């Protein structure tokens, strides 16, 4: 008896949960309303079955529960009943399948006028490529991938010269314009998902997969990787910004073409030396860093990383957070470097500075830190040397007190909290796994031994 009641309560409860639950599909932002419809149809059909069958079962449990005087009916089978039920089920299945296949057919054939865009995945971040004026993508291959050529572009393919290379996890799309995503991976499987768009597809190394949709709502939507791709799978985030045509054009123009990238002159160290004077006041003449000034060592740090961070300071992606006191000091300094070349020059100069590790200032249990560092090693390298293609800077031999502060900032979101600081957000995920001050000191103590 209690069983029957519970069964009924579970059915009622499940329905209640379903209708009251605030956790449902995110508001649609693409043309795939049809998918939602199919989901609803499926919900209705299966819902009816769920309620009907279970209530009937509950009824049986009540009505036919054991009593001394009762004896079960003897009925081996009932062909008629069984056929009716099978037929009903078949109809129910068909009612769900038919619309499903109809919508799938729509998904399978891509509209002629769809604009093309390529999402490139790697452990553990996104970048994008647009075909440029000629509307054709140039040849690209994983074998050509290198720090200088992260997209693996084929320099000899004329079609590739005007391809726009978006070295960022954020991509923009014009609203109401069908777009076909080409998906390419440099290493393992990934999956390009925007919940609000409904459709998703895997990135498969060695082949180009694709999917299409039409953004119907302007706004900013998160990109999640939904195929397990290693230990930082959950932190492989990006964003799609849907905006009107004009803004989209402006955004596209702000990114270099493959030709631009190749033409870029290397930074000029001597020119950089002049601008570097400004920096020395805090970071020290040799860029060796000064704890008193809260300025970290920059000599010996990877050039690409310095450029990236300077860009972040300039754009207010870093050093904007109210609690980031020292970052706020650095931001205006960074802005004194007016042009991209200016930045390149300073960085080139910094590369010429002597590379000697400062004395350790942080105590901690290096052994325990070593345990935890195994996770860090996936991106920063076992020797803490930094790996450009993972967007992970050098740690070994950099100012340890500074590392401690940054880890705390990452943990609290003071750094990496800005919506456009994707690599920062990723580091935030990892810093979050360091429970406390001690854990942080341990790791840094270990890094000091590298």
């Amino acid at each position, binding site marked *: *008896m209690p069983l029957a009641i519970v069964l009924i309560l579970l059915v009622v409860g499940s329905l209640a949960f379903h209708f009251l639950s605030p*956790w449902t*599909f995110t508001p649609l932002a693409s043309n*795939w309303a049809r*998918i939602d419809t*199919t*989901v609803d149809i*499926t919900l209705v059909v*299966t819902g009816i*079955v*769920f309620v009907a*069958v279970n209530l*009937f079962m509950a009824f*049986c*449990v009540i009505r*036919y529960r*054991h009593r001394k005087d009762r*004896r*079960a009916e*003897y*009925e*081996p089978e*009932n062909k008629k009943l*069984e056929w009716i039920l099978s037929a009903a089920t078949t109809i129910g*299945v068909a009612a*769900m*399948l038919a619309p*499903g*296949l109809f919508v*799938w057919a729509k998904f399978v054939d891509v509209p002629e006028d769809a604009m093309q865009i390529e999402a490139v995945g790697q*452990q553990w971040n996104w970048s994008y490529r647009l075909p440029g004026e000629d509307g054709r993508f140039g040849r690209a*291959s*994983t074998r050509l991938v290198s720090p200088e050529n992260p997209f693996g572009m084929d320099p000899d393919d004329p079609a590739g010269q005007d391809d726009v290379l978006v070295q960022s996890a954020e991509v923009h799309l014009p609203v109401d314009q069908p777009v076909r995503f080409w998906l390419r991976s440099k*290493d*393992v*499987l990934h*999956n390009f*998902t925007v*919940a609000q768009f409904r*459709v*998703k597809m895997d990135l*498969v190394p*060695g082949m180009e997969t694709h999917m299409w949709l039409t953004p119907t709502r302007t706004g*900013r939507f998160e990109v*999640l990787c*939904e195929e*397990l791709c*290693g*230990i*930082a*799978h*959950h932190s492989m985030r990006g964003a799609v910004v849907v905006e009107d045509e004009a803004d989209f054009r402006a955004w596209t123009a702000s990114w270099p073409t493959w030709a631009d990238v190749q033409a870029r002159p290397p930074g000029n160290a001597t020119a950089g030396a002049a601008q570097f004077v400004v920096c020395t006041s805090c970071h020290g003449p040799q860029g060796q860093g000064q704890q008193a000034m809260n300025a970290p060592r920059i000599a010996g740090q990877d050039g690409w990383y310095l450029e990236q961070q300077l860009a972040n300071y300039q754009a207010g992606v870093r050093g904007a957070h109210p609690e980031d006191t020292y970052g706020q000091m650095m931001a205006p300094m960074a802005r004194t470097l007016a042009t991209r070349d200016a930045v390149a020059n300073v960085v080139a100069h910094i590369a010429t500075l002597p590379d000697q590790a400062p004395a350790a200032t942080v105590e901690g249990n290096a052994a325990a830190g070593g345990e935890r560092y*195994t996770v860090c090693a*996936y991106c920063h*390298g076992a020797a803490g040397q930094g*790996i450009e*293609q993972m967007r992970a800077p050098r740690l070994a031999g950099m100012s340890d007190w500074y590392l401690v502060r940054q880890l705390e900032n990452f943990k609290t979101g003071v750094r990496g909290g800005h919506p456009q600081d994707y690599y920062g957000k990723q580091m935030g*995920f990892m810093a979050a*796994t360091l*429970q406390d001050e001690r854990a942080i000191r341990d790791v840094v103590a270990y890094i000091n031994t590298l």
Partner: protein
Amino acid sequence: MAYVAIADRDHEIEHHDPRTFIRKYIWSQDHKVIAVQYALTAIFVGLVALTLSVMMRLQLGFPNDFSFITPESYYQFITMHGMIMVIYLLTALFLGGFGNYLIPLMCGSRDMVFPYMNMLSYWVYLLSVLILLASFFVPGGSTGAGWTLYPPQAISSGTAGAQWGIILMLVSLATFIVAFTMGGLNYVTTVLQARCRGMTLMRLPLSVWGIFMATILGLLAFPALLVSAIMLLLDKTLYTSFFMPDMVSAGQQTVHTNGSPILFQHLFWFFGHPEVYIVALPAFGIVSDLLATHARKNIFGYRMMVWAILAIGGLSFIVWAHHMYVSGMNPYFGFFFATTTLIIAVPTAIKVYNWVLTLWRGNIHLRVPMLFAIGFIFTFIHGGLTGIFLGNVVVDLPLSDTYFVVAHFHMVMGVSPILVVFGAIYHWFPKITGKMYSERLGRWHFWLTFLGTYSIYLPMHYLGFLGVPRRYFAMGDTAFMPDSAHALNESITISAIIVAATQLIFLYNMITSLARGKKADPNPWGATTLEWQTPDTPPRHGNWGHELPVVHRWAYDYSVPGYPEDFIPQTVPADVAPVGRRHGVQHA
């Protein structure tokens, strides 16, 4: 011919009765002992996997509160959790455990036809388990590739345990397959050739049918896993490029070229989908017998039930790519596989209906096994219906790789067959041990497990709708994820901990009952099938004393009109007058 067959069988099964403890309980060739060995080992690893699941839940419910759960270890936990639960717990428990115990007894034979190979099967299985557990302790730890072990990720540097863990995992799987094949050959041949006189196929209890079909699926599907494991192992150790494409790993170009990751997925799921029915079909069969026995009514539509089992078995080989709708395979496959996948719903539906119709106009005793059986029907319907969502290719687009999938397969595999396992243990415990267990504790165990698991998995569907991806160490702050979702995760975790703790009640009940439970009636439920008609309880080696039983009727003669008793054992001749409960073997 008939007599010849029996004769030539009886001398093939040399009938020995070992005396020494070692020969009796360790190197035993008795199917019942082997069954228990299988079951205990499986339950042991099951508990390991259960512990892992709790640790996963701790991270998901209370992110980053525990220093021993890093992203690395989290992915290692889910991988081992999944793999152990599916293969080393359920497959081994249903086929190695229940298959071994029930087949010879229900078919009325003295033992499996190849007892020695049967014993070997267990020891090889144990070996595979040890290899698996060893991988926790090698440098780098066990593999964190997810139980699907997809390359390139499974064997490339971005993944935990890509050094030794994955190698041990693959070796362990290969070993398991060898063990399973040795057992499987036994089950098939025993069912087909070693039944007692009068036991036609259509007189077999559905438990045997379910296990039989599952075994056939296993024998044909596991080779797919073996093939993919061998080729992946070669890619890993000898740098072939079956599956491994060109790639840049941690900034380094690798030696592999042009391999096809999708090829692996096809092979894996060609095994993987039948596998899920390998753990489902025995549950279907066993639950049918539990329902019939405790509802005192013949299983409704026996023939349909048998054909449904065959149909499901056949169909399960042509639906595998429904796991690959968003894998980048040729999208046109979607049409075919969506159709076949939804067709499977029909035979499955028939089974569900017939279970419920068995209760209809029955005389339902709500004993512990029955509670679990009815609980199974409920959770299975729920899980099956969510499968329909995923099978319908476009509906799978938003839901694939989200918690909806996790919810689906836990509802349908993580709890339904588990409920049957428990029900079956409570049902056959008196026969296996000769002792009775505590009904009261059994009920507690049922209620907490049933309600607990439902409160774990129902909410997961809604996280899935919301778009929460599976295999995420942490959600972090994601714009479309309200804080309420985090709260939901906490509640799930709490239920999970409760349910996990509940299993201690079960273990306590089993152990104490074994030690000082009161002696069990040889046929406490008044069941008709042969295993309840053995001359002694627990059955001795050889099962049947001097003479094999002879069967005169099907397995479901409950409440037959005109008989005072509400059941007639299969061994009772058609013309014999009504018989009493404690009825032993009928000698021919």
